[in-house]
């Protein structure tokens, strides 16, 4: 249930080894231990759990600066679920009404897909609260759900059936990803069902401590997907995948009747390239003379194979060559809606990421996260940043 008091014991497992300094993006740009996961845990412990010290606006700011990228949690050998503890803290602070974490506006908007231009409104909200950024992604002229809905059956034998959860990034900004997902799956004999009435997965709301908002989105989506007779549930977005796999169940109490349905969905959720790699391609892809680099999204910890899936899948395309980044897994700073409210830190994190990107020569940058796609894309002019599934679609001539 993401209640802070439930973490009092596990927070003691932090051994102060400092290994989180190796991957925490806010630490890497600040180079100060104030801004590292370990210090955030200490603030939570000393100021909110044990109340040995007063909780101050500066402490709040340090907690707010966390991107929830989950790199610390993935690095932590002591297995402290640091991101969950930060979320639980934001929920608690939100409830107490202390300090200034803003109630999440954008998340609420995304609960209703019917609202056209939700992200356009998000942009104007961002401007109203004084964090004007020109880097608000362009909305697609037609959202994915306006073009695709219902069941898409492959031409030949149906090998598998999957349901497709369409995240907000694909729906509003990059419907091209969605098109490629449907075509590539169909091409491999996989039937795709796109249920009507899907809403945001809930992760942006949860990141802001809006448990209620996240819970209602989880409920809507779970009710929509749990009853479907499918082999798998597919997402093209690693953050949506993480939300379903790891966070959805935590948004409801353990004895909530919906937990069983959540478990059904959790067991079936796959990122699309991970799923295809796991199943094996039915049709070998054609030749594609392209060099590509792979920016591994931060929200990869929920599947042990998701970060290698694009490498293996696209490795089957004759003539396509992977040019690895120095640190393929380094955060880009976008982090959902973080870049809007924490422009300065986000831009520093991105600048660090861009050094590596600019040192690596390739034709295209691939990533499964729509936020990475546009946030890196704003600053990379010489190459397209896109989803790996699109390259596979291209190799198939789809």
């Amino acid at each position: 249930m993401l209640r802070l008091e439930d973490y009092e014991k596990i927070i003691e497992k932090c051994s102060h080894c400092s290994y989180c300094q190796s991957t925490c993006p806010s630490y890497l740009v600040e180079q100060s231990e104030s801004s590292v996961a370990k210090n955030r845990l200490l603030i939570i412990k000393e100021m909110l759990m044990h109340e040995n010290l007063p909780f101050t606006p500066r402490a709040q700011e340090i907690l707010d600066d966390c991107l929830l990228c989950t790199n610390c949690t993935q690095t932590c050998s002591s297995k402290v679920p640091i991101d969950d503890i930060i979320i639980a803290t934001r929920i608690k602070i939100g409830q107490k009404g202390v300090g200034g974490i803003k109630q999440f506006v954008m998340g609420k908007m995304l609960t209703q897909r019917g609202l056209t231009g939700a992200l356009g409104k998000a942009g104007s909200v961002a401007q109203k609260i004084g964090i004007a950024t020109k880097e608000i992604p362009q909305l697609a002229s037609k959202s994915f759900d306006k073009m695709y809905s219902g069941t898409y059956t492959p031409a030949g034998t149906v090998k598998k059936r999957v349901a497709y959860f369409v995240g907000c990034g694909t729906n509003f900004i990059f419907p091209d990803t969605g098109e490629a997902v449907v075509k590539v799956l169909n091409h491999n004999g996989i039937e795709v069902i796109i249920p009507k009435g899907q809403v945001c997965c809930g992760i942006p709301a949860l990141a802001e401590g809006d448990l209620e908002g996240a819970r209602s989105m989880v409920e809507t989506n779970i009710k929509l997907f749990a009853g479907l007779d499918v082999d798998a549930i597919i997402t093209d977005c690693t953050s949506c995948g993480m939300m379903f796999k790891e966070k959805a169940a935590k948004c409801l109490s353990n004895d909530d009747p919906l937990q069983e349905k959540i478990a059904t969905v959790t067991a079936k959720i796959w990122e699309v390239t991970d799923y295809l790699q796991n199943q094996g391609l039915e049709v070998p892809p054609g030749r594609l003379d392209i060099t590509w680099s792979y920016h591994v999204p931060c929200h990869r910890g929920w599947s042990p194979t998701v970060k290698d899936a694009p490498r293996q899948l696209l490795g089957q395309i004759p003539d396509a060559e992977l040019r690895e980044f120095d640190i393929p897994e380094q955060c880009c700073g976008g982090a959902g809606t973080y870049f809007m409210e924490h422009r300065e830190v986000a831009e520093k994190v991105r600048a660090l990421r861009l050094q590596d990107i600019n040192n690596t020569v390739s034709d295209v940058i691939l990533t499964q996260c729509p936020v990475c796609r546009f946030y890196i894309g704003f600053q990379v002019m010489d190459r397209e940043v896109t989803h790996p599934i699109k390259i596979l679609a291209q190799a198939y001539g789809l």
Partner: protein
Amino acid sequence: MQGLVKDLATLLGPTQILSQPEEMLAYANDATHYFKSRIPDAVVLPHTTEEVAKVMKYAFEKEIPVTPRGAGSGLAGGCTPVHGGIVMDLKRLNQIVEIDGSNMTARVEGGVVLKKFQDTVEKRKLFYPPDPQSGCVCTIGGNVATRAGGPRGVKYGTTGNYVTGLEVVLPDGSIITPGGKFVKQSVGYDITHLMTGSEGTLGVITGVNLRLLPLPEADRTVIVVCETLEQAAEIVAEIIARGAVPAMLEFLIKLAITIMNQYFFPPLPTDGEGYLFMFFDGTEAQVEYEAKLVSEICHDMKAKEVRLIEDPRAAATYWTARANVYPLIQTIFERANSEDITVPRNKLPDLVRAVQEIAAAEEVMIGLAGHAGDGNMHPSILFPQVTPEALEKSEIAIDKLIRTGLDMGGTISGEHGIGIHKSKYLAWELGDIQIELMKRIKQAFDPKGIMNPGKIWMEDGDKHA
């Protein structure tokens, strides 16, 4: 300390000072937070040697304690600011100044992260062997200050074997550059290596000259499962005696393997008691020969299983897991106190037996892991629960462990340093005359006693052994 923060802000600018408790909680200790913690009065984050010197000059005038700090990943409490004052965080001195392939040398600032440095030189087919297991975060300045080492010590030695020169800011703010880029020097006292292992008590290490080696072309990983701990220890002694020189030779117990198995596919069998992880590097022919020789020794000595890992990615997972053993242990125990005993290598079987006897006699759990190849073991007292009774028992057990190691002709610390954690035992190893000599050296460098006070030896008022 009135006006301290304001003065420091004037010296360095406000973005390089931390002064609110919530900004400094992480600075109150290193990875031994269960010993002592103290939030400093201020943290400074200098970018340059000159800034370090400015702060030292100020602290010297005002007689304010200064505790230099690298990553804060130490295991001896060396950078815990026990007397408060200023913590000097050196992680922003993070430039690799030079890698000179033709001379096989490098020059780095003190705050360069070890792994970043190693990755950088390895791209140029060069090799910097010292490998404290916190390499992903620990700094080279911190490595020098603690004379840090790791598994590769068996073949390649530790940090001290690679340092050829330093840049040091002395307590009064003056800057010295002992040693240099040359690989040998015979000029007066060896200040370079006196600073190496000085744990921040003599000055601040801001720059380091290092010697490099050519990157070995090939490597092999061999995993050995042994029936008993004694068998594992005897195999280690035999390997050394037969002249095989692994680059790493690690000793682990079943408990560690069960936790590490989450990294391995297929998992290691858990029906053995002792486990050896070995790594050979060199030319292809050499690693082939050594891996074969060692496999034969293990078979002759009736090891349960010898697993040769061919796939480099699989091999890497074993070593990643090895690097994470200490934090992994913390997932199942409330606390783990790691010791750092090092004995002559032929004494390893005796040490292993003695550790088990002490554990049984004192009714404590002692996990045993370490760099068996160089005789450096890390027996860890494992606390299912931290109670006053458990702490008391553990102290008796640690005393006995240390005494046993010394009686075997060993040392109380192979690579962690003394800090506050092991100062109680300093006199056991060095005796009063050496400690007095060290204190006089300290007095010569640091007449006002502001450099990392309270470390290495016991202070008046501390509980003596």
